[in-house]
């Protein structure tokens, strides 16, 4: 197969990645091993991308509840659809994946806490009244995640290697420290909801918990084999 044809094939993929192959391109593909390899790679990437997109994280439950109320009040929907909780979907699987999800969700919550501004007029103007974000809403989501994760955290900690008691006790001790920090920082945010410094500390505490859970999961998976 001449390099020119391969170059043309590659250019065609580059310019129209989602377009169906022309007859000439199909003919070229049948004869060219290199382009077959390129094509199969592109297919794999495309498939992975589609699967990735179908797995996207859903917004928090309270946002759905607010949206649902809004739509019901406007008569756009009449009854609630049966819907499996996103927490159950996430955390109803194996502990390792649940913990990985937990770490990510903690980071997401932390990012949300860091990002939202309670009394920012711009947010209030853009969002409908019922969808405006208040200081307590993220805590509701956090509490839900906390409950859902409790069992999985225990499972992961119970699966830490028996031969390294120092590891297990250190992780448990530090989990207690971080949980305590989160409680103290949440109280601080409740007392001073407009204070960015308090929110930063709470954000940092969640980040640390995410790191701790990721470490515990890593150690249990690695050494428990």
């Amino acid at each position, binding site marked *: 197969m001449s390099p020119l044809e391969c170059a043309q094939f590659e250019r065609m993929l580059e310019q129209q990645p989602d377009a169906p192959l022309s007859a000439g391109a199909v003919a070229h593909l049948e004869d060219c091993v290199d382009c077959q390899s390129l094509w199969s790679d592109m297919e794999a990437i495309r498939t992975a991308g589609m699967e990735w997109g179908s797995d996207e994280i859903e917004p928090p439950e309270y946002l759905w509840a607010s949206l649902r109320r809004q739509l019901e009040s406007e008569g756009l929907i009449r009854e609630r659809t049966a819907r499996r909780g996103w927490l159950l979907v996430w955390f109803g699987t194996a502990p390792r994946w649940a913990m990985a999800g937990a770490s990510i969700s903690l980071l997401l919550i932390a990012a949300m806490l860091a990002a939202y501004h309670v009394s920012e007029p711009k947010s209030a103007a853009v969002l409908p009244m019922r969808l405006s974000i208040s200081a307590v809403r993220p805590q509701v989501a956090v509490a839900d995640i906390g409950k859902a994760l409790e069992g999985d955290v225990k499972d992961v900690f119970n699966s830490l290697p028996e031969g*390294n008691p120092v*590891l297990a006790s*250190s992780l448990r001790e530090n989990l207690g420290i971080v949980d305590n920090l989160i409680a103290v920082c949440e109280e601080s945010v409740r007392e001073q909801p407009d*204070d960015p410094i308090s929110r930063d*500390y709470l954000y*940092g505490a969640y980040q*640390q918990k995410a790191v701790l859970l990721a470490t515990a999961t890593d*150690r249990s998976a690695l050494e428990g084999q």
Partner: protein
Amino acid sequence: MKGRVSSAVPFRVAGTMLVAFFIAGSAGAQTRRFERHFTVQGKPVVSVQNATGRIQVRAWDKPEVLIVGQRGSSNVEVDTEQVGNRIEIATRVTAASANSEVLRADYDISVPVESELQVRSDSGNVVVDSVHGDMSFDTVAADLALQDVEGYLMIKSIGGSTVCTRCAGRLDATSISGNFQLLQPTMDNVRVQTSSGNILFDGGFMNRGIYVLKNYSGTIEVRFSSSDSFDVRATSLYGNVVNQAPVVPDRHNMPAPRNGLAKSLFGTMNDGRAKVELSSFNGTIKISKRE
């Protein structure tokens, strides 16, 4: 006479058994000892993964990596691999045990001065001496002692503490309950965060250096000399700031924190060449004059 002979027999048997045990134990210790040599060119990257046990890394002037170690038992194996200048060392558990001593492995590693290190350890101590190169440490309860090292140092620990003596370069370190002590550092970029641990920075602030030290509780202490030149911004939200530095009001228009409850200090010492940011949630921040 007959009685004497019969009473001596048990002693002889016991003695023989003791000798046999000693020989067997010694042979076992010998078989659990291992030594590997790897010839390298230029700057090697050495990666060590050891869940339990001591890791000691020292620099030497040979273009060679030498690993001498001792396994706690036959329940652990040591895997090593060299691919070009990359050398990987990993302790592998072959049979589980509830006894941590059985699963431990101790390493004495000699590397060229210019080497990069990646160390992962859960419990045990990690000591690195006189190595120049980027290093990363991922530990849970293992304590870390670094001395005379130079490079970009990244430390992630959960409960282990770090003592860094005469370290140079750049440091990025986080822990949850670990303490950090930086003694006589010559570093121009330091970021340390621990939740409940203490942080001590006892060294000069370099011109244009940035030093960010943060914790939630515990003490952050920095020690300065009269020739140091830095801008300082220290804030403890619910704790205290104790200052001995003769700072003047900040000349560089750094914004003050908005929280009215926080104890804070904003100021400049000498020309304010370095930037020092100290923050704590409810801990104590001390800015002390070096004796």
